[in-house]
Every structure is written in C-alpha cells, then in structure tokens.
C-alpha cells in the first residue's frame, strides 16, 4: 500500500467503524444462539443468530474490500470517487429486518 491519503486517518477510521459494526452484530448473534433456544424451544429460534453471523462475516469481507478500494481511489491508483450507498442501504435494510424478527419473537412467545 502507498502513502496515507489523510493525516486524520479518515479512511482507516471508517474501515474500523465498519469492522466494529460487524463485530457488534457477530457478538449479538452469538448471544442470540446461546439464549434464544432456551427461551422458546423452537428450532426456528436458531435462525436469527445464524443469519446474523453469516451477515457479520459478509460485512467484514465487504468492509475490507471497501477500505482497500477507498484507499486506492483517494491515492489515485483507481479512478472514481468514494462512498457509494449500496452496502449502506443493505446494512440499514438488514438491521430493520432484524428488528422485525425481534418484534415477532417478543409478540409471539
């Protein structure tokens, strides 16, 4: 990798923010896998934790790719600007679906 774009380490901090968001989702999913089956007894209660773990892994990979791409664009190794919203929209949508699943769990138990 070439020199840093910015002394304030903005791309690096943004990469770390994606990473800790993915880790928060992974930790929450692991706790859900541990706690939810005891709370209800249905095998369906394993689903949110599993989907959450897979999503967290995907988010980590996507975050790493996005950071590398951002770095290369800002240091003009790649054409184009930073900051597309596809992964942003997908993350918001996935979080909303998780909240709906949580609502369903609380209302049906």
């Amino acid at each position, binding site marked *: 990798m070439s020199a840093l*774009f*910015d002394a*304030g380490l*903005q*791309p690096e*901090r*943004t990469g770390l*923010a*994606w990473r*800790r*968001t993915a880790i*928060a*989702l992974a930790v*929450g999913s692991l*706790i*859900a896998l541990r*706690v*939810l089956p005891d*709370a209800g007894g249905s095998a369906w209660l394993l689903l949110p934790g599993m989907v959450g773990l897979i999503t967290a892994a995907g988010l980590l990979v996507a975050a790493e790719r996005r950071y590398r791409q*951002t770095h290369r664009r*800002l240091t*003009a190794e790649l*054409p*184009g*600007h*930073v*900051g*597309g*919203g*596809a992964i*942003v*929209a997908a*993350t*918001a*949508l996935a*979080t*909303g679906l*998780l*909240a*709906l699943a*949580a*609502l369903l*769990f*609380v*209302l049906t*138990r």
Partner: protein
Amino acid sequence: MTTPSHDTDPATGTASPHRFPARLFRCGSEPDPRFTLANERTFLAWIRTALALIAAGVALEALGLDLHPELRLSASLLLIVAGLLTPLQAWAGWYGTERALRRSRPLPAPILALPTAVAVLAAGVLVVLGVLFR
C-alpha cells in the same frame, strides 16, 4: 451550484464507476471525501445503536427476568420499536447529509435523536417500575 461531475473523474478523465443511489450522486458536486467518510461513520453509529436497542429488547423478554410482566413487555416493545426506527434514521440521515454536502447546504439534523433518547429513558423507567412492582 449543480455541476454534475460523477460521469468522469476530474483527476484522470476516466469514467467513474456507477454509485448507488444514482439520483443522489447525480446532484451537486463531489464533496471533500473526508466528509463523505465521516457521514458513513455516523450512519454506522446509528446502526450500532439500533443493534443495541434490538438486543436489549430481546434480552428483556428472553432471559426470563423476574419483573412485572406487563411492564417488562412494554419496555421490550419500546426498545424494539426504537430499534426498528433507528435504521430508517440511519439511512435517511446518510442520504440527506450526503445530498446536503453535495449541494453545499447546511446539514440536516437527526430527526430521531430526541425520540430515541426519550424511548431509552422511558424503557429505563419501565424496567425500574417493573423491579419495584414485580
């Protein structure tokens, strides 16, 4: 004020890859990338807030805590509904801020900041009452 610059990269003159949502990136001009990155981190902070709210709401009901049942359920629902609205704020805030940056306008205020704080406070009060009246 509105100079579409997303089609070609001013530095290299080469075609810039398409960015979603196209409507947003068509407007205005490219801001300082550091602002775009800061906007992205704010979005992520809202998402982590949503995850915490959802986890707290589920935990209240899933852990079998010895609280007043209706108060516990109310606190749980309040947290989860807040956790449902927060991703909307995250997306709308990201979109609105990016648009304001591109148009060099004042940044929008987060609409759901105060309601989120009130919801967390109310959930806390409900849990305390649930402990007192169990």
